[in-house]
Protein backbone atom coordinates (compact mmCIF):
# COMPACT_ATOMS: atom_id res chain seq x y z
CA UNK A 1 0.00 0.00 0.00
CA UNK A 2 1.45 3.30 -1.10
CA UNK A 3 0.29 6.51 0.54
CA UNK A 4 1.32 10.07 -0.10
CA UNK A 5 1.30 12.77 2.56
CA UNK A 6 0.87 16.40 1.51
CA UNK A 7 2.33 18.92 3.97
CA UNK A 8 -0.20 21.74 3.68
CA UNK A 9 2.05 24.33 5.26
CA UNK A 10 4.63 26.43 3.46
CA UNK A 11 6.27 27.40 6.74
CA UNK A 12 9.86 26.43 7.44
CA UNK A 13 8.76 24.98 10.78
CA UNK A 14 5.44 23.22 10.55
CA UNK A 15 3.54 21.09 13.00
CA UNK A 16 1.59 19.60 10.15
CA UNK A 17 4.86 18.40 8.65
CA UNK A 18 5.79 16.99 12.03
CA UNK A 19 2.48 15.14 12.23
CA UNK A 20 3.04 13.52 8.84
CA UNK A 21 6.62 12.67 9.74
CA UNK A 22 5.32 10.96 12.83
CA UNK A 23 2.86 8.94 10.73
CA UNK A 24 5.67 8.04 8.34
CA UNK A 25 7.82 6.77 11.17
CA UNK A 26 5.19 5.14 13.30
CA UNK A 27 3.30 3.27 10.61
CA UNK A 28 6.24 2.28 8.44
CA UNK A 29 5.37 -1.39 8.65
CA UNK A 30 1.75 -0.83 7.59
CA UNK A 31 2.21 1.22 4.43
CA UNK A 32 4.75 3.04 2.30
CA UNK A 33 4.55 6.72 3.00
CA UNK A 34 6.13 9.56 1.08
CA UNK A 35 5.86 13.20 2.05
CA UNK A 36 5.48 15.96 -0.49
CA UNK A 37 5.70 19.68 0.12
CA UNK A 38 3.66 22.63 -1.09
CA UNK A 39 6.36 25.11 -0.20
CA UNK A 40 8.46 26.35 -3.08
CA UNK A 41 5.74 25.61 -5.63
CA UNK A 42 4.72 28.51 -7.87
CA UNK A 43 1.46 30.33 -7.10
CA UNK A 44 -1.33 29.10 -9.36
CA UNK A 45 -1.83 31.51 -12.23
CA UNK A 46 -4.31 30.73 -14.96
CA UNK A 47 -2.49 33.06 -17.34
CA UNK A 48 0.94 31.53 -16.74
CA UNK A 49 0.38 27.80 -17.09
CA UNK A 50 3.14 25.81 -15.40
CA UNK A 51 1.41 22.45 -15.46
CA UNK A 52 4.29 21.06 -17.48
CA UNK A 53 6.96 22.20 -15.03
CA UNK A 54 9.09 19.50 -13.47
CA UNK A 55 7.78 20.25 -9.99
CA UNK A 56 4.10 19.92 -10.91
CA UNK A 57 4.67 16.92 -13.15
CA UNK A 58 6.57 15.10 -10.43
CA UNK A 59 3.72 15.66 -7.99
CA UNK A 60 1.26 14.58 -10.65
CA UNK A 61 3.11 11.33 -11.20
CA UNK A 62 3.43 10.65 -7.47
CA UNK A 63 -0.25 11.26 -6.82
CA UNK A 64 -1.31 9.15 -9.77
CA UNK A 65 0.57 6.15 -8.52
CA UNK A 66 -0.37 6.51 -4.86
CA UNK A 67 -3.17 4.35 -3.51
CA UNK A 68 -4.31 7.16 -1.27
CA UNK A 69 -3.40 10.67 -0.15
CA UNK A 70 -3.31 12.15 3.36
CA UNK A 71 -3.47 15.93 3.45
CA UNK A 72 -2.34 17.71 6.60
CA UNK A 73 -3.76 21.20 6.61
CA UNK A 74 -3.00 24.12 8.87
CA UNK A 75 -5.70 26.73 9.36
CA UNK A 76 -5.12 30.34 8.40
CA UNK A 77 -7.99 32.78 8.75
CA UNK A 78 -10.54 29.98 8.99
CA UNK A 79 -9.45 28.37 5.75
CA UNK A 80 -6.59 26.39 4.16
CA UNK A 81 -3.20 27.91 3.37
CA UNK A 82 -2.69 29.66 0.05
CA UNK A 83 0.15 27.29 -0.77
CA UNK A 84 -2.06 24.22 -0.37
CA UNK A 85 -4.94 25.81 -2.26
CA UNK A 86 -2.55 26.81 -5.03
CA UNK A 87 -1.34 23.22 -5.43
CA UNK A 88 -4.91 21.96 -5.64
CA UNK A 89 -5.63 24.58 -8.29
CA UNK A 90 -2.69 23.34 -10.38
CA UNK A 91 -4.05 19.83 -9.93
CA UNK A 92 -7.52 20.78 -11.17
CA UNK A 93 -6.63 22.99 -14.14
CA UNK A 94 -5.11 20.98 -17.01
CA UNK A 95 -4.52 17.75 -15.08
CA UNK A 96 -6.68 15.99 -12.53
CA UNK A 97 -4.59 13.43 -10.67
CA UNK A 98 -6.76 13.62 -7.55
CA UNK A 99 -9.85 12.51 -9.44
CA UNK A 100 -11.33 9.43 -7.71
CA UNK A 101 -8.31 9.29 -5.39
CA UNK A 102 -9.08 8.34 -1.78
CA UNK A 103 -8.11 11.24 0.47
CA UNK A 104 -7.92 11.55 4.23
CA UNK A 105 -7.76 14.96 5.89
CA UNK A 106 -5.84 15.67 9.09
CA UNK A 107 -4.81 18.96 10.61
CA UNK A 108 -2.69 20.39 13.37
CA UNK A 109 -3.19 23.76 14.94
CA UNK A 110 -2.04 25.79 17.89
CA UNK A 111 -5.59 26.09 19.01
CA UNK A 112 -8.00 23.57 20.55
CA UNK A 113 -10.62 23.79 17.83
CA UNK A 114 -7.79 23.98 15.39
CA UNK A 115 -8.29 23.39 11.70
CA UNK A 116 -11.93 22.35 12.04
CA UNK A 117 -13.00 25.15 9.73
CA UNK A 118 -10.08 24.67 7.36
CA UNK A 119 -10.91 20.97 7.16
CA UNK A 120 -14.51 21.74 6.21
CA UNK A 121 -13.35 24.12 3.50
CA UNK A 122 -10.89 21.55 2.28
CA UNK A 123 -13.64 18.95 2.00
CA UNK A 124 -15.69 21.34 -0.12
CA UNK A 125 -12.68 22.11 -2.28
CA UNK A 126 -11.76 18.44 -2.81
CA UNK A 127 -15.37 17.68 -3.63
CA UNK A 128 -15.59 20.23 -6.45
CA UNK A 129 -15.87 18.73 -9.93
CA UNK A 130 -12.43 19.82 -11.14
CA UNK A 131 -10.76 18.04 -8.23
CA UNK A 132 -13.23 15.21 -7.69
CA UNK A 133 -11.33 13.42 -4.95
CA UNK A 134 -13.06 10.83 -2.80
CA UNK A 135 -12.68 12.17 0.71
CA UNK A 136 -13.11 9.73 3.57
CA UNK A 137 -16.28 10.78 5.36
CA UNK A 138 -16.85 10.99 9.06
CA UNK A 139 -13.35 11.08 10.41
CA UNK A 140 -11.92 14.26 11.76
CA UNK A 141 -8.39 14.14 13.06
CA UNK A 142 -7.81 17.52 14.63
CA UNK A 143 -4.61 17.86 16.54
CA UNK A 144 -5.15 20.88 18.76
CA UNK A 145 -2.65 22.47 21.12
CA UNK A 146 -0.03 21.14 18.83
CA UNK A 147 2.85 22.93 20.47
CA UNK A 148 2.52 20.55 23.37
CA UNK A 149 1.59 17.46 21.40
CA UNK A 150 4.99 16.03 20.51
CA UNK A 151 7.87 14.88 22.65
CA UNK A 152 11.50 15.59 21.86
CA UNK A 153 11.68 12.61 19.51
CA UNK A 154 8.73 13.82 17.46
CA UNK A 155 6.37 11.24 18.92
CA UNK A 156 2.80 12.03 19.91
CA UNK A 157 2.74 12.14 23.69
CA UNK A 158 -0.86 11.33 24.38
CA UNK A 159 -1.75 7.67 24.16
CA UNK A 160 -5.41 8.31 23.34
CA UNK A 161 -4.40 10.55 20.46
CA UNK A 162 -2.05 7.89 19.17
CA UNK A 163 -4.77 5.25 19.35
CA UNK A 164 -7.26 7.54 17.64
CA UNK A 165 -4.82 8.27 14.84
CA UNK A 166 -4.10 4.58 14.48
CA UNK A 167 -7.80 3.77 14.20
CA UNK A 168 -8.35 6.56 11.67
CA UNK A 169 -5.50 5.25 9.56
CA UNK A 170 -6.87 1.72 9.75
CA UNK A 171 -10.20 3.01 8.54
CA UNK A 172 -8.50 4.85 5.76
CA UNK A 173 -6.73 1.70 4.58
CA UNK A 174 -10.09 -0.06 4.51
CA UNK A 175 -11.68 2.92 2.81
CA UNK A 176 -9.03 2.73 0.09
CA UNK A 177 -9.75 -0.91 -0.58
CA UNK A 178 -13.49 -0.23 -0.73
CA UNK A 179 -12.99 2.70 -3.08
CA UNK A 180 -10.69 0.69 -5.30
CA UNK A 181 -13.48 -1.82 -5.77
CA UNK A 182 -15.54 0.98 -7.32
CA UNK A 183 -13.00 1.09 -10.12
CA UNK A 184 -13.34 -1.03 -13.19
CA UNK A 185 -11.33 -4.20 -13.70
CA UNK A 186 -7.67 -3.85 -12.73
CA UNK A 187 -5.67 -2.32 -15.51
CA UNK A 188 -3.52 -4.62 -17.59
CA UNK A 189 0.03 -3.41 -17.74
CA UNK A 190 1.54 -3.55 -21.22
CA UNK A 191 3.79 -6.50 -22.01
CA UNK A 192 7.55 -6.04 -21.68
CA UNK A 193 9.84 -6.74 -24.61
CA UNK A 194 12.81 -8.49 -23.02
CA UNK A 195 14.56 -8.69 -26.38
CA UNK A 196 14.85 -4.87 -26.49
CA UNK A 197 13.61 -4.71 -30.05
CA UNK A 198 12.39 -1.15 -29.63
CA UNK A 199 14.58 1.82 -28.85
CA UNK A 200 14.79 4.84 -26.58
CA UNK A 201 16.44 8.18 -27.27
CA UNK A 202 19.79 6.93 -25.96
CA UNK A 203 19.78 3.59 -27.78
CA UNK A 204 22.88 3.23 -29.96
CA UNK A 205 21.52 2.00 -33.27
CA UNK A 206 22.99 -0.54 -35.68
CA UNK A 207 25.13 -2.42 -33.20
CA UNK A 208 24.52 -6.09 -32.57
CA UNK A 209 23.24 -6.19 -28.99
CA UNK A 210 24.25 -9.82 -28.59
CA UNK A 211 27.81 -9.28 -29.67
CA UNK A 212 30.52 -10.14 -27.13
CA UNK A 213 32.19 -6.87 -28.11
CA UNK A 214 29.15 -4.63 -27.96
CA UNK A 215 30.96 -2.03 -25.86
CA UNK A 216 33.80 -1.65 -28.38
CA UNK A 217 31.46 -1.73 -31.36
CA UNK A 218 29.07 0.80 -29.83
CA UNK A 219 32.01 3.01 -28.83
CA UNK A 220 33.16 3.08 -32.44
CA UNK A 221 29.76 4.54 -33.35
CA UNK A 222 29.32 7.21 -30.70
CA UNK A 223 32.90 7.97 -29.61
CA UNK A 224 32.15 8.26 -25.89
CA UNK A 225 34.41 10.46 -23.78
CA UNK A 226 36.75 8.55 -21.51
CA UNK A 227 39.74 8.76 -19.23
CA UNK A 228 40.49 12.23 -17.96
CA UNK A 229 37.75 14.04 -19.85
CA UNK A 230 35.54 16.09 -17.58
CA UNK A 231 31.84 15.45 -17.29
CA UNK A 232 29.39 17.80 -15.59
CA UNK A 233 26.89 16.17 -13.25
CA UNK A 234 24.07 17.09 -10.87
CA UNK A 235 25.98 18.16 -9.01
CA UNK A 236 29.66 18.47 -9.63
CA UNK A 237 32.37 17.92 -12.19
CA UNK A 238 34.28 14.66 -12.43
CA UNK A 239 36.44 12.96 -14.99
CA UNK A 240 35.25 9.70 -16.48
CA UNK A 241 37.96 7.94 -14.48
CA UNK A 242 36.70 9.49 -11.28
CA UNK A 243 33.17 8.34 -12.05
CA UNK A 244 34.51 4.84 -12.59
CA UNK A 245 36.44 4.94 -9.33
CA UNK A 246 33.37 6.20 -7.52
CA UNK A 247 31.11 3.49 -8.90
CA UNK A 248 33.64 0.74 -8.21
CA UNK A 249 34.03 1.92 -4.64
CA UNK A 250 30.33 1.40 -3.96
CA UNK A 251 29.74 -1.40 -1.48
CA UNK A 252 27.31 -3.09 -3.82
CA UNK A 253 27.11 -4.39 -7.35
CA UNK A 254 25.25 -2.07 -9.69
CA UNK A 255 23.74 -2.94 -13.04
CA UNK A 256 22.00 -0.44 -15.27
CA UNK A 257 19.28 -1.49 -17.68
CA UNK A 258 17.76 1.26 -19.83
CA UNK A 259 14.08 1.95 -20.60
CA UNK A 260 14.41 -0.32 -23.65
CA UNK A 261 15.37 -3.30 -21.48
CA UNK A 262 18.96 -3.28 -22.70
CA UNK A 263 21.75 -4.09 -20.22
CA UNK A 264 24.17 -1.16 -20.54
CA UNK A 265 26.52 -1.20 -17.59
CA UNK A 266 27.74 -2.89 -14.45
CA UNK A 267 30.40 -1.79 -11.99
CA UNK A 268 33.10 -4.30 -12.67
CA UNK A 269 34.41 -4.68 -9.14
CA UNK A 270 35.86 -8.15 -9.38
CA UNK A 271 36.01 -11.29 -11.44
CA UNK A 272 32.68 -12.62 -12.53
CA UNK A 273 32.94 -15.72 -10.34
CA UNK A 274 33.38 -13.78 -7.14
CA UNK A 275 30.47 -11.42 -7.71
CA UNK A 276 27.01 -12.06 -6.27
CA UNK A 277 25.70 -11.85 -9.82
CA UNK A 278 28.19 -13.38 -12.22
CA UNK A 279 28.22 -10.52 -14.68
CA UNK A 280 30.75 -10.61 -17.48
CA UNK A 281 31.96 -7.75 -19.66
CA UNK A 282 30.79 -9.66 -22.77
CA UNK A 283 27.20 -9.50 -21.55
CA UNK A 284 27.03 -5.73 -21.64
CA UNK A 285 24.78 -4.56 -24.46
CA UNK A 286 22.59 -7.66 -24.31
CA UNK A 287 18.84 -7.42 -24.24
CA UNK A 288 17.95 -8.47 -20.71
CA UNK A 289 16.12 -11.47 -22.12
CA UNK A 290 19.59 -12.85 -22.87
CA UNK A 291 20.65 -12.44 -19.24
CA UNK A 292 17.82 -14.46 -17.75
CA UNK A 293 16.71 -18.03 -18.22
CA UNK A 294 13.37 -18.34 -19.96
CA UNK A 295 11.74 -19.70 -16.82
CA UNK A 296 12.31 -16.32 -15.12
CA UNK A 297 10.81 -14.24 -17.96
CA UNK A 298 7.34 -13.87 -16.51
CA UNK A 299 8.62 -12.69 -13.20
CA UNK A 300 11.11 -10.29 -14.75
CA UNK A 301 8.42 -8.86 -17.02
CA UNK A 302 6.10 -8.37 -14.11
CA UNK A 303 8.67 -6.46 -12.08
CA UNK A 304 9.75 -4.24 -14.97
CA UNK A 305 6.19 -3.41 -16.00
CA UNK A 306 5.35 -2.37 -12.44
CA UNK A 307 8.45 -0.21 -12.21
CA UNK A 308 7.72 1.32 -15.62
CA UNK A 309 4.10 2.07 -14.70
CA UNK A 310 5.18 3.61 -11.42
CA UNK A 311 3.30 1.01 -9.38
CA UNK A 312 6.57 0.41 -7.59
CA UNK A 313 9.66 2.52 -7.08
CA UNK A 314 11.80 -0.36 -5.99
CA UNK A 315 11.38 -4.10 -5.87
CA UNK A 316 13.55 -5.99 -3.40
CA UNK A 317 14.26 -9.66 -3.42
CA UNK A 318 16.44 -11.56 -0.96
CA UNK A 319 18.53 -14.24 -2.64
CA UNK A 320 20.22 -16.95 -0.57
CA UNK A 321 24.02 -16.82 -0.75
CA UNK A 322 24.81 -19.11 2.13
CA UNK A 323 25.10 -18.52 5.88
CA UNK A 324 26.25 -15.23 7.36
CA UNK A 325 24.83 -13.23 4.48
CA UNK A 326 21.61 -11.48 3.71
CA UNK A 327 21.94 -10.58 0.06
CA UNK A 328 19.19 -8.50 -1.48
CA UNK A 329 18.71 -7.68 -5.14
CA UNK A 330 17.16 -4.23 -5.35
CA UNK A 331 15.51 -3.14 -8.59
CA UNK A 332 15.27 0.62 -8.36
CA UNK A 333 13.40 2.55 -11.08
CA UNK A 334 15.30 5.40 -12.75
CA UNK A 335 13.54 8.54 -13.90
CA UNK A 336 14.62 11.44 -16.09
CA UNK A 337 14.23 15.02 -14.89
CA UNK A 338 10.69 15.06 -16.22
CA UNK A 339 9.86 12.03 -14.14
CA UNK A 340 9.63 9.59 -17.06
CA UNK A 341 10.74 6.03 -16.53
CA UNK A 342 14.34 5.62 -17.70
CA UNK A 343 15.27 2.08 -16.72
CA UNK A 344 16.48 0.18 -13.69
CA UNK A 345 19.38 0.39 -11.30
CA UNK A 346 19.78 -3.11 -9.97
CA UNK A 347 22.01 -3.02 -6.94
CA UNK A 348 22.92 -6.11 -5.04
CA UNK A 349 23.80 -5.62 -1.45
CA UNK A 350 24.59 -7.83 1.52
CA UNK A 351 22.60 -6.30 4.37
CA UNK A 352 24.03 -8.57 7.04
CA UNK A 353 27.19 -6.56 7.76
CA UNK A 354 25.04 -3.43 7.99
CA UNK A 355 22.76 -5.03 10.52
CA UNK A 356 25.71 -6.40 12.49
CA UNK A 357 27.41 -3.04 12.46
CA UNK A 358 24.27 -1.27 13.56
CA UNK A 359 23.68 -3.69 16.42
CA UNK A 360 27.27 -3.40 17.56
CA UNK A 361 27.27 0.39 17.48
CA UNK A 362 23.95 0.82 19.23
CA UNK A 363 24.19 -2.10 21.61
CA UNK A 364 20.76 -3.25 20.44
CA UNK A 365 19.81 -6.84 19.86
CA UNK A 366 17.42 -8.51 17.52
CA UNK A 367 14.87 -10.27 19.65
CA UNK A 368 11.42 -11.69 19.29
CA UNK A 369 9.98 -13.43 16.29
CA UNK A 370 11.91 -15.99 14.36
CA UNK A 371 15.12 -14.03 14.31
CA UNK A 372 17.43 -16.86 13.44
CA UNK A 373 15.62 -17.74 10.29
CA UNK A 374 15.62 -14.22 9.02
CA UNK A 375 19.02 -12.87 9.72
CA UNK A 376 20.93 -15.43 11.64
CA UNK A 377 21.31 -12.91 14.46
CA UNK A 378 21.46 -14.08 18.03
CA UNK A 379 18.24 -15.33 19.48
CA UNK A 380 17.08 -14.24 22.84
CA UNK A 381 14.14 -15.51 24.78
CA UNK A 382 12.22 -12.50 25.57
CA UNK A 383 8.62 -11.49 25.99
CA UNK A 384 9.10 -7.78 26.40
CA UNK A 385 8.12 -5.44 23.59
CA UNK A 386 10.93 -5.29 21.15
CA UNK A 387 12.37 -3.73 18.13
CA UNK A 388 11.50 -6.76 16.06
CA UNK A 389 13.07 -7.26 12.70
CA UNK A 390 10.91 -4.92 10.59
CA UNK A 391 11.43 -2.02 12.95
CA UNK A 392 15.11 -2.62 13.21
CA UNK A 393 15.71 -3.00 9.53
CA UNK A 394 13.76 0.18 8.90
CA UNK A 395 16.13 2.02 11.16
CA UNK A 396 19.07 0.45 9.46
CA UNK A 397 17.98 1.72 6.10
CA UNK A 398 17.58 5.24 7.49
CA UNK A 399 21.17 5.11 8.62
CA UNK A 400 22.37 3.89 5.30
CA UNK A 401 25.28 6.18 4.50
CA UNK A 402 27.22 5.37 7.64
CA UNK A 403 26.04 1.85 7.91
CA UNK A 404 27.12 1.03 4.40
CA UNK A 405 30.62 2.33 4.71
CA UNK A 406 30.83 0.26 7.83
CA UNK A 407 29.60 -2.72 5.94
CA UNK A 408 32.17 -2.44 3.22
CA UNK A 409 34.96 -2.88 5.72
CA UNK A 410 33.65 -6.27 6.50
CA UNK A 411 31.85 -7.58 3.50
CA UNK A 412 34.40 -9.61 1.67
CA UNK A 413 32.71 -10.95 -1.41
CA UNK A 414 32.42 -14.69 -1.19
CA UNK A 415 31.63 -16.97 -4.03
CA UNK A 416 27.89 -17.16 -4.42
CA UNK A 417 26.13 -20.36 -5.32
CA UNK A 418 23.32 -19.14 -7.48
CA UNK A 419 22.02 -15.94 -8.86
CA UNK A 420 18.38 -16.77 -8.68
CA UNK A 421 17.19 -13.46 -10.07
CA UNK A 422 19.37 -12.75 -13.00
CA UNK A 423 19.81 -16.43 -13.51
CA UNK A 424 22.82 -17.69 -15.26
CA UNK A 425 23.52 -15.94 -18.46
CA UNK A 426 22.86 -17.88 -21.57
CA UNK A 427 26.43 -17.24 -22.45
CA UNK A 428 27.68 -18.77 -19.21
Amino acid at each position, binding site marked *: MKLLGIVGS*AAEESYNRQLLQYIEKEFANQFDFELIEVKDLPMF*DESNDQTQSVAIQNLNRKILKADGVIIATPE*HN*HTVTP*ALKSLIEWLSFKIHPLATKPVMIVGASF*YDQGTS*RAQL*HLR*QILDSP*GVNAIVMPGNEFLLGNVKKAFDEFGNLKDEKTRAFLQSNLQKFLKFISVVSKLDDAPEQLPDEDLQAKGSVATTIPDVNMSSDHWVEEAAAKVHPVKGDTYVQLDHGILTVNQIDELLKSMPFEITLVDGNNQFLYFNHTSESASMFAHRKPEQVGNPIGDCHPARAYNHVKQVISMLRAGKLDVFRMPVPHGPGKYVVHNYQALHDTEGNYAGINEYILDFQPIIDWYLKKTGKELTGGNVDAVSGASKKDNTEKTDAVPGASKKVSRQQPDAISGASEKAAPVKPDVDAVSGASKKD
Partner: protein
Amino acid sequence: MKKLIGIVGTNSATSTNRQLLQCMQHHFQKDATIELMEIQNLPMFNKPTADKLPDIITEMAAKIEAADGVIISTAEYDHSAPAALINALDWLSYGIYPFVDKPVMVTGASYGALGSSRAQAQLRQVLDAPELHAMIMPSSEFLLGNSLSAFTEDGALKDTDIIEKLDGIFADFLVFVDIAQQLKNAHDANKKAAADFDWDKIR
Protein backbone atom coordinates in the same frame (compact mmCIF):
# COMPACT_ATOMS: atom_id res chain seq x y z
CA MET B 1 -17.33 61.38 -1.77
CA LYS B 2 -16.45 57.96 -0.43
CA LYS B 3 -13.10 56.44 -1.22
CA LEU B 4 -13.25 52.74 -1.85
CA ILE B 5 -10.74 50.06 -2.79
CA GLY B 6 -11.78 47.34 -5.22
CA ILE B 7 -9.67 44.21 -4.79
CA VAL B 8 -9.46 42.07 -7.92
CA GLY B 9 -9.83 38.63 -6.37
CA THR B 10 -7.71 36.72 -8.85
CA ASN B 11 -4.21 36.96 -10.33
CA SER B 12 -5.38 36.03 -13.81
CA ALA B 13 -4.31 38.44 -16.57
CA THR B 14 -7.78 38.35 -18.06
CA SER B 15 -10.53 38.39 -15.48
CA THR B 16 -14.25 39.00 -15.55
CA ASN B 17 -13.98 40.00 -11.88
CA ARG B 18 -11.58 42.78 -12.89
CA GLN B 19 -14.09 43.70 -15.59
CA LEU B 20 -16.87 43.83 -13.02
CA LEU B 21 -14.89 46.18 -10.77
CA GLN B 22 -13.92 48.37 -13.73
CA CYS B 23 -17.55 48.49 -14.71
CA MET B 24 -18.55 49.52 -11.16
CA GLN B 25 -15.74 52.09 -11.06
CA HIS B 26 -17.24 53.76 -14.09
CA HIS B 27 -20.89 53.19 -13.33
CA PHE B 28 -20.70 54.62 -9.80
CA GLN B 29 -18.21 57.42 -10.46
CA LYS B 30 -20.67 60.06 -9.23
CA ASP B 31 -21.12 58.31 -5.89
CA ALA B 32 -17.66 57.07 -5.00
CA THR B 33 -14.11 56.71 -6.24
CA ILE B 34 -13.12 53.09 -6.57
CA GLU B 35 -9.42 52.39 -6.85
CA LEU B 36 -8.60 48.93 -8.17
CA MET B 37 -6.07 46.90 -6.22
CA GLU B 38 -4.31 43.91 -7.79
CA ILE B 39 -3.02 40.86 -5.97
CA GLN B 40 -0.73 39.63 -8.71
CA ASN B 41 2.93 38.92 -8.04
CA LEU B 42 2.73 38.77 -4.26
CA PRO B 43 5.16 36.28 -2.72
CA MET B 44 3.65 33.03 -1.46
CA PHE B 45 2.75 33.43 2.23
CA ASN B 46 4.96 31.15 4.32
CA LYS B 47 4.75 32.52 7.86
CA PRO B 48 8.17 34.18 7.62
CA THR B 49 9.89 34.66 10.94
CA ALA B 50 11.47 38.01 9.99
CA ASP B 51 9.55 41.02 11.32
CA LYS B 52 9.58 42.99 8.12
CA LEU B 53 6.74 42.47 5.68
CA PRO B 54 7.30 42.92 1.94
CA ASP B 55 6.95 46.62 0.96
CA ILE B 56 4.14 45.84 -1.44
CA ILE B 57 2.11 44.43 1.46
CA THR B 58 2.60 47.44 3.72
CA GLU B 59 1.65 49.72 0.81
CA MET B 60 -1.54 47.74 0.21
CA ALA B 61 -2.34 47.79 3.92
CA ALA B 62 -1.91 51.57 4.08
CA LYS B 63 -4.34 52.06 1.19
CA ILE B 64 -6.93 49.81 2.77
CA GLU B 65 -6.45 51.55 6.10
CA ALA B 66 -7.11 54.91 4.45
CA ALA B 67 -10.17 53.79 2.48
CA ASP B 68 -13.77 54.14 3.65
CA GLY B 69 -14.58 50.65 2.48
CA VAL B 70 -13.40 47.73 0.38
CA ILE B 71 -15.10 45.75 -2.37
CA ILE B 72 -13.65 42.30 -2.96
CA SER B 73 -14.66 40.60 -6.17
CA THR B 74 -13.70 36.97 -5.98
CA ALA B 75 -13.27 34.43 -8.71
CA GLU B 76 -14.20 30.86 -7.85
CA TYR B 77 -11.65 28.09 -8.18
CA ASP B 78 -12.68 24.65 -6.94
CA HIS B 79 -15.64 26.05 -5.01
CA SER B 80 -13.47 28.45 -3.05
CA ALA B 81 -11.60 31.73 -3.41
CA PRO B 82 -8.41 31.59 -5.51
CA ALA B 83 -5.17 30.84 -3.68
CA ALA B 84 -3.90 34.24 -4.81
CA LEU B 85 -6.69 36.00 -2.89
CA ILE B 86 -6.30 33.88 0.25
CA ASN B 87 -2.61 34.62 0.01
CA ALA B 88 -3.18 38.39 -0.05
CA LEU B 89 -5.49 38.16 2.96
CA ASP B 90 -2.97 36.09 4.94
CA TRP B 91 -0.29 38.71 4.35
CA LEU B 92 -2.77 41.46 5.25
CA SER B 93 -3.45 39.90 8.65
CA TYR B 94 0.08 38.96 9.60
CA GLY B 95 1.07 41.44 12.28
CA ILE B 96 -0.93 44.17 10.54
CA TYR B 97 -4.68 44.61 10.83
CA PRO B 98 -6.01 46.93 8.10
CA PHE B 99 -9.27 45.03 7.75
CA VAL B 100 -10.39 45.28 11.36
CA ASP B 101 -13.88 46.86 11.28
CA LYS B 102 -13.41 47.85 7.64
CA PRO B 103 -16.73 47.80 5.76
CA VAL B 104 -16.44 45.13 3.05
CA MET B 105 -18.74 44.28 0.19
CA VAL B 106 -18.26 40.89 -1.44
CA THR B 107 -19.01 40.38 -5.11
CA GLY B 108 -17.99 37.70 -7.54
CA ALA B 109 -18.17 36.59 -11.14
CA SER B 110 -17.94 33.15 -12.61
CA TYR B 111 -18.20 31.53 -16.00
CA GLY B 112 -20.94 29.20 -14.88
CA ALA B 113 -24.46 30.09 -13.78
CA LEU B 114 -23.79 30.23 -10.06
CA GLY B 115 -21.65 33.36 -9.96
CA SER B 116 -19.03 32.21 -7.46
CA SER B 117 -21.61 31.61 -4.73
CA ARG B 118 -19.52 28.99 -2.90
CA ALA B 119 -16.32 31.03 -3.05
CA GLN B 120 -18.22 34.00 -1.63
CA ALA B 121 -19.60 31.93 1.23
CA GLN B 122 -16.09 30.74 2.17
CA LEU B 123 -14.66 34.24 1.74
CA ARG B 124 -17.17 35.60 4.23
CA GLN B 125 -15.99 33.07 6.81
CA VAL B 126 -12.38 34.04 6.09
CA LEU B 127 -13.06 37.75 6.52
CA ASP B 128 -14.68 36.95 9.85
CA ALA B 129 -11.49 35.39 11.28
CA PRO B 130 -10.12 37.21 14.33
CA GLU B 131 -7.11 38.77 12.63
CA LEU B 132 -9.10 40.08 9.68
CA HIS B 133 -12.30 40.94 11.55
CA ALA B 134 -13.82 42.87 8.68
CA MET B 135 -17.29 44.37 8.88
CA ILE B 136 -18.91 42.41 6.10
CA MET B 137 -22.10 43.82 4.71
CA PRO B 138 -24.76 41.28 5.66
CA SER B 139 -27.56 39.87 3.50
CA SER B 140 -26.15 41.21 0.29
CA GLU B 141 -25.01 38.63 -2.20
CA PHE B 142 -24.00 39.91 -5.61
CA LEU B 143 -23.39 37.00 -7.95
CA LEU B 144 -22.52 37.52 -11.59
CA GLY B 145 -23.03 34.25 -13.41
CA ASN B 146 -22.14 33.52 -17.03
CA SER B 147 -19.62 36.30 -16.71
CA LEU B 148 -17.92 35.73 -20.06
CA SER B 149 -20.98 37.02 -21.87
CA ALA B 150 -22.16 39.53 -19.25
CA PHE B 151 -20.44 42.66 -20.58
CA THR B 152 -20.85 44.82 -23.66
CA GLU B 153 -17.82 45.70 -25.75
CA ASP B 154 -17.24 48.89 -23.76
CA GLY B 155 -17.40 47.06 -20.49
CA ALA B 156 -20.94 47.81 -19.28
CA LEU B 157 -23.21 45.14 -17.87
CA LYS B 158 -25.74 44.02 -20.47
CA ASP B 159 -28.56 42.80 -18.29
CA THR B 160 -30.71 45.60 -16.85
CA ASP B 161 -32.04 43.37 -14.04
CA ILE B 162 -28.51 42.76 -12.92
CA ILE B 163 -27.65 46.47 -13.13
CA GLU B 164 -30.66 47.24 -10.99
CA LYS B 165 -29.63 44.67 -8.42
CA LEU B 166 -26.08 46.04 -8.34
CA ASP B 167 -27.34 49.62 -8.00
CA GLY B 168 -29.41 48.60 -5.00
CA ILE B 169 -26.64 46.72 -3.26
CA PHE B 170 -24.09 49.44 -3.91
CA ALA B 171 -26.41 52.15 -2.55
CA ASP B 172 -26.87 50.00 0.54
CA PHE B 173 -23.14 49.59 0.84
CA LEU B 174 -22.63 53.36 0.94
CA VAL B 175 -25.15 53.54 3.77
CA PHE B 176 -23.48 50.58 5.45
CA VAL B 177 -20.16 52.46 5.32
CA ASP B 178 -21.80 55.36 7.17
CA ILE B 179 -23.37 53.09 9.73
CA ALA B 180 -20.06 51.34 10.17
CA GLN B 181 -18.52 54.70 11.10
CA GLN B 182 -21.00 54.91 13.94
CA LEU B 183 -20.21 51.40 15.06
CA LYS B 184 -16.64 52.38 15.75
CA ASN B 185 -17.02 52.64 19.53
CA ALA B 186 -15.44 49.28 19.96
CA HIS B 187 -12.93 49.86 17.18
CA ASP B 188 -9.88 50.55 19.27
CA ALA B 189 -10.64 47.59 21.43
CA ASN B 190 -11.19 45.40 18.35
CA LYS B 191 -7.94 46.53 16.81
CA LYS B 192 -6.12 45.74 20.00
CA ALA B 193 -7.88 42.41 20.25
CA ALA B 194 -6.71 41.52 16.76
CA ALA B 195 -3.17 42.62 17.50
CA ASP B 196 -3.11 40.79 20.82
CA PHE B 197 -4.80 37.80 19.37
CA ASP B 198 -2.74 34.70 19.74
CA TRP B 199 -3.82 31.33 18.42
CA ASP B 200 -1.81 29.89 21.27
CA LYS B 201 -3.82 31.43 24.04
CA ILE B 202 -7.43 30.67 23.25
CA ARG B 203 -9.32 27.70 24.52
